[in-house]
């Protein structure tokens, strides 16, 4: 069931928010010991919120499509009175006295928060193998990772525990678990959704966005979240739109770029075929597919990593005396950031501007790009390398090749399930657009979703 379907059922009095919330909590109780998607479950508060939601609907006070819908947020978003760990032992006892902007807006829209999802420690990694709160398992195959860093959110949505879970994305952390868990993940434009109250990993690369079971649901959530927030210095005043796409929209007049270079090399069997099939479906919906050449995205990824290393080390430097309590993989990244110089950082930021100039030329040719989200389906737990005919590469930089660079430019992107690989694991197609083109991205995604076979939920 999607948010749209649940919202219709709530208004038709076929179901109540309390029933939806109890079902969510039952499912969490049943499957979370195995999946470890949650760090904290707020069952009593959720049921109280659900009762209020039902009462309000009965009184004719309708807060919109999220009213009474059980959702979760990654444990990187501050929640008043509920601990917010950022997946780390360092923040294990941190109980904020305020809500993050995202949480405020979800509550104002009537959503029912059932808990805080597990994640890669400090949102700094792609496996969500959390050493303190348990390794999150992929609902499609518990021996595989769900992706990260928003792995608990991806697993919770894929396992039907919640209708929507919020993620954060610094170098792909919404889109990676979305692709590997077979759900929709939307990273909006930098500044579109407030980051106030989101524990930072990187000041200039972090984004917040929803993970859902459908494109329409992602749009509904963006409608609730988008908007200027004076408490976030990077928040944008760019005009808002209704992000919800029409039913099975036409793509007439939309030019979709299909990269000829970089995005289709070193990909696992089935990945290129699935995305090319999606391109054909877009064409059937009226879009024009334009082959395009993209600049040196590999170099952009490296520069993005340098910025991340330095800024994340700066964020965590006040806690250096406790770095021994951080998992080894994350600690090594923080240490690397300490060794890069101020000059290196400024040069990386100068290159960031130049690279944006280089890459943005693509927007003179096309409205959006269609690429694979990930070069591989979800890897098995413990895998550290990608193996190709012409060599190997480390899992983290290798797997994030297609998602990382655009965070440097703040561009919006969405990952959409686009089929299964030969092993039956979900694959994602990524739609990338210029700043503030979320409505168009969602329209393209909705058209593809309407034509792609819908994935059956994973057997748990």
């Amino acid at each position, binding site marked *: 069931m999607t948010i749209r379907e649940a919202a219709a059922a709530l208004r038709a009095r076929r179901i109540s928010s309390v029933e939806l919330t109890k079902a969510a909590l039952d499912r969490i109780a049943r499957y979370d010991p195995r999946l470890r998607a949650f760090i904290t479950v707020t069952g009593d508060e959720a049921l109280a919120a659900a009762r209020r939601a039902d009462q309000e609907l009965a009184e004719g006070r309708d807060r919109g499509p999220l009213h009474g819908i059980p959702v979760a947020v990654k444990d990187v978003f501050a929640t008043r009175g509920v601990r917010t760990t950022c997946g780390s032992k360092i923040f294990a006892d941190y109980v904020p006295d305020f809500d993050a902007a995202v949480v405020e807006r979800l509550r104002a829209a009537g959503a029912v928060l059932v808990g805080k999802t597990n994640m890669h420690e400090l949102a700094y990694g792609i496996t969500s193998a959390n050493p303190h709160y348990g390794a999150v398992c992929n609902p499609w195959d518990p021996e595989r990772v769900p992706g990260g860093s928003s792995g608990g959110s991806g697993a919770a949505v894929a396992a039907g525990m919640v209708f929507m879970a919020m993620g954060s994305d610094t170098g792909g952390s919404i889109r990676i678990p979305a692709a590997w868990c077979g759900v929709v993940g939307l990273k909006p434009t930098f500044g579109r959704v407030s980051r106030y109250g989101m524990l930072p990993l990187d000041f200039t690369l972090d984004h917040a966005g929803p993970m859902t079971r459908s494109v329409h649901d992602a749009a509904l959530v963006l409608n609730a979240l988008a908007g200027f927030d004076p408490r976030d210095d990077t928040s944008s005043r*760019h005009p808002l739109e209704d992000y919800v796409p029409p039913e099975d929209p036409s793509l007439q007049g939309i030019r979709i770029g299909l990269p000829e270079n970089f995005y289709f090399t070193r990909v696992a069997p089935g990945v290129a075929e699935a995305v090319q099939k999606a391109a054909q479906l877009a064409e059937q919906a009226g879009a024009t597919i334009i082959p395009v050449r993209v600049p040196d995205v590999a170099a952009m990824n490296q520069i993005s990593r340098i910025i991340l290393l330095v800024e994340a080390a700066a964020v965590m430097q006040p806690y250096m005396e406790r770095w021994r309590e951080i998992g080894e993989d994350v600690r090594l990244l923080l240490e690397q950031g300490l060794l890069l110089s101020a000059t290196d950082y400024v040069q990386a930021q100068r290159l960031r501007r130049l690279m944006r100039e280089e890459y943005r030329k693509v927007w003179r040719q096309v409205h959006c790009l269609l690429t694979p989200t990930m070069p591989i389906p979800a890897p098995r737990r413990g895998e550290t390398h990608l193996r190709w005919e012409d060599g190997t590469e480390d899992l983290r930089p290798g797997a994030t090749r297609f998602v990382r660079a655009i965070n440097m430019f703040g561009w919006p992107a969405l990952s959409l399930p686009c089929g299964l690989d030969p092993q039956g694991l979900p694959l994602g197609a990524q739609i990338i657009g210029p700043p503030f083109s979320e409505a168009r991205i969602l329209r393209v995604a909705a058209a593809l979703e309407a034509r792609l076979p819908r994935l059956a939920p994973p057997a748990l």
Partner: protein
Amino acid sequence: MRSPRYTTCMPDWRLLAAARGLNLPEEDLHRIEPVLDELYAVLSDRAARIPLTAEPLINFRCEVEEEAI
């Protein structure tokens, strides 16, 4: 007195760590070095070609792409 010679070469990450007073474990340094070498190679190559007037994008904001179709 000899005049200084400025060259671009790979930093000695161990010396840098020691100079900064970071007491990083040997096994961590061993794993960090090749990663930083790889990143630094890309950075220094590109940085050598940055135009003089290129400013950093530190105060990052997203704006509408004026030239987008």
